């Protein structure tokens, strides 16, 4: 399972959910494999993608909110898992793609490529529902599970790394405006 597989699986099952994509590879691959008006592409603010999803999920309890995040970015702001657990939005699904690398900067190995287990950290933080997926079948089962049990969810998807799609160079403001219309 590579990042493109994850993005296609997420986009196919998203329905009218609002999706926040982490900066870099996740945003590029979601744009390439599943662009829609309800996608917000982060262009910076590494570490804050899940926090944006949390704020949106709290503001809009009537909508499903899906975050597609990277392991390096989640490591930068592990505290968000505690905040999400405490606020407990049932409509939030936080998917973290685990490649154990800083892919954007040349593939330097990071802690999740070694001993660090983000699913265990999420459980320890008190996230209600945690799933792990090492292949596409497990991921699709986990995504279907998020439709049936209230969250917040953390889905850790282990991916193989083949590099990412070309950067679409989305404009933050144009993307924001289209996204906010889709969120209405």
């Amino acid at each position: 399972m590579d990042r493109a597989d994850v993005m296609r699986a997420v986009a196919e099952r998203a329905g009218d959910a609002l999706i926040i994509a982490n900066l870099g590879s996740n945003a590029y691959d979601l744009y390439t494999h599943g662009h829609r008006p309800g996608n917000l592409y982060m262009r910076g603010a590494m570490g804050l993608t899940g926090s944006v999803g949390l704020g949106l999920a709290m503001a809009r309890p009537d909508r499903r909110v899906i975050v597609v995040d990277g392991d390096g970015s989640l490591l930068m702001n592990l505290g968000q898992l505690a905040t999400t657990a405490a606020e407990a939005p049932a409509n939030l699904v936080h998917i973290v793609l685990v490649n154990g690398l800083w892919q954007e900067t040349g593939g330097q190995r990071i802690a999740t490529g070694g001993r660090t287990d983000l699913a265990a950290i999420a459980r320890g933080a008190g996230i209600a529902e945690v799933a792990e997926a090492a292949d596409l079948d497990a991921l699709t089962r986990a995504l279907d599970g998020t439709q049936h049990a209230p969250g917040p969810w953390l889905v850790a998807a282990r991916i193989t790394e083949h590099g990412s799609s070309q950067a679409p160079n989305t404009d933050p403001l144009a993307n924001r405006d289209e996204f906010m219309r889709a969120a209405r």
Partner: protein
Amino acid sequence: MAWADDIVEAFRSQQVKLVVYVADKVLVPVLERIAADPEHFRLVPLTREEEGVGILAGAFFGGVRGALLMQSSGFGNTLNGLASLAIPYQVGFPMLISMRGALGETNKAQVPMGRALPEVLDSFGIPRYDLDRPEAVAAVSRGAARQAFATGRPVGLLLSSLMTGGKGGGF
């Protein structure tokens, strides 16, 4: 405390619903008043101030207005979130910042951030207003919040120890 009443009333009048914060002793009167009105306000403690920029951005995208409360030292933790999320995506919210490192400061570790903070805001192009006179707090707080939401840009409200008495409760 009238200044705390005025700030909370200003936020209420501008439809601020979500207040995210890292606690500070000086902010306690504000936090207590917000916590006392759960029908209107949702109060969320953060693990780190930058997290609050992300949460307020998400809420803003979903049509809910928020405010970020923190001490000047914690403002240093927000910078990349402000520069690469709030400003380019035009996310507006008031930041109520209790100032340390200025008049009456006894802790050397508070001085560099407190001194740099106004210039950091200026260099980001983030408007800032001092809350240092009790008679102006209501108008300044209301105006800053209104400006933040109308212009899609964070606005700093710098709570001066001159007005609050600082951490020690008076000079």
